Structure formats: C-alpha cells, structure tokens
C-alpha cells in the first residue's frame, strides 16, 4: 500500500495559520497518509534539508507538497542541488496558495477548492510510477555537410575545440559561393585570398577529414549514434562509407535562379554576381564592357528577394565603387533600401554623397531598348512630386538585376534524408524562436548559414560559431543525460500503421522489427521478420504527446501523463 508524506508549506506566512488548520482538518479523513508536517519555508536550504531528513527516516514512498507554484519548488530544488530521496516522479505539488487562497474571496470556498486540489494531487501521486534517468555516451565526432564559408568555419571552430570533424562537400573543392565575392561591404579584405587561407588551414588540420564529390545518401539513428551512409563519386566509380557521428551540422548554402525572359535576357542586363566578377577582373580607371567605357549603370533590385538584405548591400557596395573609382554614374532602384546591417547606413549615405542616385518604386519599372542601350522608366515614390511628373527615365549601358535566392538543389532531398522540416520557399527549417536559429526539429542536428536563410557573410560567421558552441555544449560532457518521461509504444497493441512516424515532429519514432505478435496480425502463421512495431527513441523524444493523441490503436502512452494518472485525478476509475 502507498504511504504518502505531506508537507504543508507556510511560504513564510503567506498561507495564514487559520487556512493551514482548515487544510489539515480537510486532509485528516484521507487514507494512505503517513504524516502531515508543517514547514515555515520549504524553498529555503534549511527547509529542504529538514524535509530530506524526514523522508530518509522512511515509511513513505510518495510525497505531496501543499503550498505555492510547483515552479517555486523546482527552482529551489535545482538551486540548492537538492536530491529527493525518492524518485522525482513520485512527487506532486498542490498549489493552494495561488489557485485557491488568492483566487477565492470567500474563505470557505477557498478551503473547499484547496481540498479538491489536494485530493487531486494525492490521487495523482498514487497513480504515478517511478521514472529513471538514463545516459547515452557521446563521442566527439561531428559530420558537417557543405564546404562553403559556413561549413568550413564550423569545421575549423570545432576542430580547434578538439572535435573530430568530417567535412562533406558535393563539389570538387571547398570554398563555395564566397569565392564569387570580391570584397566585403564592411571589411577591407580580399575575399578570395581570405577564403583560400581558411580552406588551406582546414586542409592542414589533422582532425578534419574532408570528403569531396560526395553526398549523404541515408541517415539512420538518433542523437549520439547517427549512422550516416556517404556516397563518393570518383569518375565513374562510386564508393560508400558509413560514419557514426554524434551530431550533424547542415550548411549546404543556397542556389540562384535568374529570370531571363524577354528584355531580361538582353546581354546588357547582368546579375549582381556577374557585376562582382566584372569589377574584380576590370583593370584601368573605368569599367570596360565589350571594349567600351561604361558610363551609366542601373541596379534594379527587389524584383526578387525582397526580404533578403544581401542584394541591397552588394548593390550599394558595387555602386559606390563604380561611382567613386570607375568614373561611372550609378542609379539604384529598389522598393526599400535595406540598411539593417552594421555600418550599412553610413555606406548608403556615402554612396549618396558620391552621387549614386536612389529611386524607390512600388510599381515595377519598365525596361525598353533605346538605341542599343536600355531605358528604365521608374515612378519614384520617395521624391515629392506630382503624379504628372512621373516617370523618370534612365538610359543605361548596363542593368544589374538580382538573382532569386533558392535553396541549393540538393536541399529538398537532404531534408528527406535528414528528416528536417522545410520552411519558406524550401529553405531548411522555419523561423522558430524556441529552436533559435541554429537548432533543427531533430536533437543533434543543427542548421546554419544560407541553407536556412541567405544573409550577410559576417552574420553567417556568427551563426557558424554559435553552432560550434551548441555542438560543444552538447558533446563536452561526453554523455547525454535524459529521463524516460517520454512516449512509449506498447508493441502488443501497435498495428504498424505508420501514423506516428509520419506525425512525429522530431523524427523520434521509427518502425523496428519486434518479435512479438501484433494485435492486427492476420490469422494463420506469423512471419516474425515481416511484422514490427513502432519504437520511440527516448533520447530524441521531446514528450510532446502528438503520437499519443493520434495513435488509432491507443498503443502509445506518455510516461507520467498516462490515462491512469489523469483518470485518477478526475476521480474516475478507468
């Protein structure tokens, strides 16, 4: 028979004596109570020590605190490093102060409500089962997918911190799209040289293993014990390796797509990255294009990528260089000037001072060919003018347009292999404040850089280090500790209907072979290799309970939130 110990916490007098007396009287009639003690302040170190002593004296196997919010006790247990002498799942808090005493005006009504809250808490602990904590060993081994600027930086940082890294790149060499940049907008660095130094450092590191021309084909397992099958193509040959990393970082970057219909396919319409290349290859005091001096350049932005700052930043950077150094005249047409980056407002103002013209449009500008040059007609909404004065016409030698940022072509396939969510426009992961930017829907898998959302390089580098921090924080203890208050499948009831693995937002459920017979197995001899049952990986489960609610066979329970416990609280027998 259960013996329940009860502590009434006066919370430094905020539950008055008269009320405590009424509670004590109300409890007296209940069965299975071993003792009922009053404490002045259970959240203090001394109070907790007295409580622990009383529990150690024995005679009880469950405990209820009657007092304030459960959070109050949780916090102070943690804070004082207090260990309950009994399993933490055999313990409940009846919050009579906030829910009865403070909520009710009439003291009798408050007593009645307190009595009900206490009864529920007692029934709840009576129906509870102990749940043990477990640990999982973690090796300092990480797989980084993508050899661009973010992937290389993550690998570099992790290697410095003593982690063995495998860096996987689909292409022939490392470096990615950063090599297309000439300069950064905010730092006087030659990007290509800087990136090459970074790549050569990564090559020198003994604890970074680089695999190029390779991709991830299959991923099994969960945090701490992933099984990653990697396929490498060498000429016509294909080799396969299986790695077992503890954590995975995805940094596969982005792709671009160019609109080239009609006039946008004209040779005088080029992309921002083509302009970057022109500028880095150009020699002499002015920009040459097909052997002639370029006088007028118009940047046409925000046709695509309206919510991405990078285009605005690159256009202002290139425009300023053209205007200041290459004796050109530049106009930048956009919906909004995106200056929400450090130092960007100053760069924008400098560009304006140097003579770069800015136009803000709402209606898409019209392009036409006039004498071999391209004319842009734009209605500027920023200037004070009468509608009759619209539009402004600009005749340009070159039109620079942005390319639409897309997820890298392999992203969708990769999201299937890794079982990661796809967010807006097919980039990896949605904005989720609870996961911050770098965590994914799966424990142990992190997402960084432009494969999540294209952004400015210095911000991507901060993200790379934040990922490194997340990974080190996960791996540094060498074990992952978790408790088993998670979902659990009863294999006898599971019909292998695949509802739960499809619904699990964290991909914590897989269907595995299970020796026991299934309730929905057809009559006749049972093929044991054919029938399985769903299995929840407790280290990967977040305990959200979606599978519990959806399982048609009611085969899944959430430990510590079982039907028995809830029915018991409601005073219903199942």
């Amino acid at each position: 028979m259960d013996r329940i110990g009860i502590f009434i916490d006066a919370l430094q007098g905020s539950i008055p004596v008269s009320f405590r007396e009424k509670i004590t009287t109300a409890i007296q009639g209940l069965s299975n109570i071993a003792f009922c003690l009053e404490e002045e302040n259970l959240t203090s170190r001394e109070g907790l020590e007295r409580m622990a002593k009383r529990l150690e004296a024995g005679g009880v196997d469950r405990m209820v605190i009657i007092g304030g919010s459960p959070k109050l006790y949780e916090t102070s247990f943690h804070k004082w490093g207090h260990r309950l002498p009994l399993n933490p799942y055999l313990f409940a808090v009846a919050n009579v102060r906030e829910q009865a005493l403070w909520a009710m005006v009439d003291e009798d009504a408050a007593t009645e409500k307190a009595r009900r809250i206490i009864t529920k808490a007692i029934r709840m602990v009576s129906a509870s089962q102990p749940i043990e904590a477990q640990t999982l060993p973690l090796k300092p081994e990480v797989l980084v997918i993508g050899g661009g600027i973010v992937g290389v930086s993550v690998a570099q940082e992790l290697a410095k911190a003593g982690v063995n890294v495998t860096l996987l790149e689909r292409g022939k060499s490392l470096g990615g799209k950063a090599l297309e940049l000439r300069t950064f907008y905010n730092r006087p660095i030659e990007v290509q040289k800087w990136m090459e130094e970074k790549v050569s450092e990564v090559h020198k590191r003994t604890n970074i293993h680089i695999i190029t021309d390779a991709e991830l084909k299959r991923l099994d397992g969960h945090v701490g014990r992933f099984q990653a099958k990697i396929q490498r193509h060498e000429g016509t040959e294909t080799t396969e390796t299986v790695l077992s990393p503890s954590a995975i970082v995805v940094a596969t970057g982005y792709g671009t797509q160019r609109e080239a219909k009609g006039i946008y396919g004209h040779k005088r319409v080029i992309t921002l990255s083509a302009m970057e290349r022109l500028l880095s290859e150009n020699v002499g005091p002015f920009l040459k294009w097909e052997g002639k001096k370029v006088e007028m350049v118009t940047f046409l932005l925000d046709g695509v990528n309206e919510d991405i700052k990078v285009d605005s930043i690159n256009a202002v950077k290139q425009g300023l260089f053209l205007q200041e150094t290459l004796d050109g005249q530049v106009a930048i047409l956009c919906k909004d000037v995106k200056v929400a980056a450090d130092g960007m407002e100053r760069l924008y103002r400098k560009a304006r001072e140097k003579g770069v013209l800015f136009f803000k449009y709402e209606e898409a500008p019209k392009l036409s060919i006039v004498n071999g040059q391209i004319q842009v007609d734009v209605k500027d909404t920023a200037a004070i003018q009468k509608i009759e004065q619209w539009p402004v016409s600009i005749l340009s030698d070159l039109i620079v347009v942005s390319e639409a940022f897309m997820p890298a072509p392999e992203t969708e396939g990769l999201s299937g292999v890794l079982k990661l969510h796809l967010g807006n426009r097919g980039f990896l992961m949605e904005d989720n404040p609870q996961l911050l930017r770098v965590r994914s829907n799966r424990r142990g898998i992190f997402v960084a850089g432009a494969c999540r959302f294209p952004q400015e390089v210095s911000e991507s580098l901060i993200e790379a280090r934040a990922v490194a921090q997340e990974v080190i924080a996960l791996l540094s203890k060498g074990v992952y500790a978790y408790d088993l208050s998670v979902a659990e499948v009863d294999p006898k009831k599971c019909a292998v209907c695949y509802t739960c693995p499809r619904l699990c937002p964290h991909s914590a459920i897989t269907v595995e072979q299970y020796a026991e017979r299934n309730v929905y197995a057809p009559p006749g001899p049972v093929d044991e290799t054919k029938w399985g049952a769903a299995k929840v990986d407790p280290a990967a489960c977040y305990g959200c309970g979606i599978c519990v609610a959806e399982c048609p066979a009611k085969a899944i329970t959430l430990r510590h939130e079982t039907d028995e416990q809830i029915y018991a609280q409601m005073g219903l027998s199942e």
Partner: protein
Amino acid sequence: MTEKNDVLIVGGGISGITVALELAQLGIPTTLVEREPSIGGLSASFCCKASESCNKCFACVVDKRISEIRSRNDISILTQTEPIGLDGGPGGYAVSLRKGKQRLDLKVSAIVVAAGVDPYEASQKTEYGYGRFKNVITAKDLDEMLRYQGRLSRPSDGQIPKTVAFFQCVGSRDESIGHLYCSQVCCAYALRLIKAIRHQHSEVKATFLYMDIQPAGSSFQQFLSSCREDKGIRLIRSLPSKVYHSPLSDALRVRFIDPQKGEVVEESFDLIVLSVGMVLRKDAKTLTQLFGLRLTEDGFIAPPESKTGVFVTGACSGPKDIDRSILQAKSTAFHVHQYLKGGN
C-alpha cells in the same frame, strides 16, 4: 586553480544571461553583475506580440532564459552591483565591485561586457512632443502597457484609441542628431505591435509612417504581406515633420507628406507611438573607460582588437534584436571558452 577560470559578465540582459548559461554548460563558473535590482534588462519588459499565430518576437525566450538562470547554482548573480575598479591584465584580472555600500573583490580570467542599450530619449526630438503631449508615447511604453496592463489605452483618458500612428526611425538614421545607423529592429518590432493590437482590438486603425522597411528573418515576407493585406493598417512611406496638439480634444494632428498626392497633409490621430532607436546605455561609458575599450563611430562599444580577455557582446556592440543577441552571445561564449583553453 578553479578560481582562475572564473568569468565576469557585466550586464544581466538577455546577452549576459545567455553567455552565462552557455559557459555554465561547458562547466565554466561565472559571475553575472547587473546594475538594476533585477536581471533581464531591456527585453524583460517586452510583451508577447502574437496575433492569430506567433509573430516571432522572441519575448517568451527571454522569460524562459531568466527562469533558467535563476534555478542554477553555478552562476552567481549580483544585482545592484557595478564594477568600479580593474587591476591586472590578460590572463588574470582583479575586479572591484560595488554593491550598495559593500565592496567586493573578484579574481577572474576573462570579462564579458554586455552592457546593453537604452531606447533613444524621444523628448530630444522636440517636434514630436514626447513628454509634452500625453498621447505621444514610445514603442517601449506601449510594449510595457500591453505587458503589465494587458490592454491598450490612451494615457489622457484611458479610452481605447481609434487611430494610432507609428513613427519609424525616431533616433535612428537621423543626421540631425548624429545617428548614422539603422537600429535594425524597430520596423519588425512596430509592425508586430500593430498586429498584436489589431488582434486584440480590431476596431483600432493603425498607420505606419516609415522611410524603408527593414526585413527581419525568413518568415518576415509573409508577415509583411499579411500587414499589407490588412485593411486596418496603412503603410505610408513618409516620416512626419511635426505633431500639433489640438486644444479642443485629446487628439493630435500630424503633418507629413502624402506620397500618393505629392502634397503636405495633416491628419488627426488618437495616439502616437514613436519607434525609438537604440543608443548605448548611458552608464556604459564608464565601463568602456574601466575596461580600456573604444567606442565605434556610431557610439557603440567596439570589440578589442587584440586578445585581452575582455569580450564585448550583445546590442551594446551595435543594434541587435533578441534573436541576434542570443546568437552572438553563443558565439561569444565559444570565444571565451577557446580563450580560456589557450587555443587560438
């Protein structure tokens, strides 16, 4: 020599809290000092800005982090405390702290400065009448009103305003006050506030007066389209020039250019909300002197150029939203860890 690995974190806002929590995860003990009586900083007074669904304002993340740090015993939190003296150099610092009349001395091997920001003092923009007109408030005032009172009301009479105007870039991107930077957060912040208000009181009509809309994150485009589609929200590209008080009512007249008409117009609003930008906390200047740090040309704290064991993180190093502050704090924690390990 465990004491040698201690890290002092100056500033108990979301950045300081995150650095402390991240270092604690790596087994590095920290001391967090905060000048105010409670931790949480500027972002602790923000309200949830969800409408039909979450609008990604990150206010709940701050609340969670605050309760997380309170339940840890490996982070010592000193409130109403400020550093007043510094001795030693890279490798080992001796910091003197003042808590009321008490003085404390602490030996640490690294210092993280996360001094935070103040909202721009809106009364300096005299043309908008903040401090003179009751119904001109800042976005922070509105945020606190929603958080602590739970409802929108007009300061003059406690009634729900029918028309609200949001002025963007108050104290940001403004050459007249020498602020040549974008505060980076206010566009999304004000639009989220509008959404939250419109969700609570659909009869309130909002007008958003701006220069350029700055995007924020991967779901911003959808969010912005939902604002544009909302008939109760007008987005007008025009910064107002002046606010006039009308003697007969509590309403305020606002003068701005209507870009559609190309004319100067005047319109009356029940409540005006100023989207104030960020400036470095006033009292952070003494910290920079104490720790030998420089200011950037925008008036924020510049990171030290060489490895001195002093780190700067959060919005005090340049305007940042909660999301980016947390991200940078994690990155800083990684730097600190590397520094203490003696790696490069």
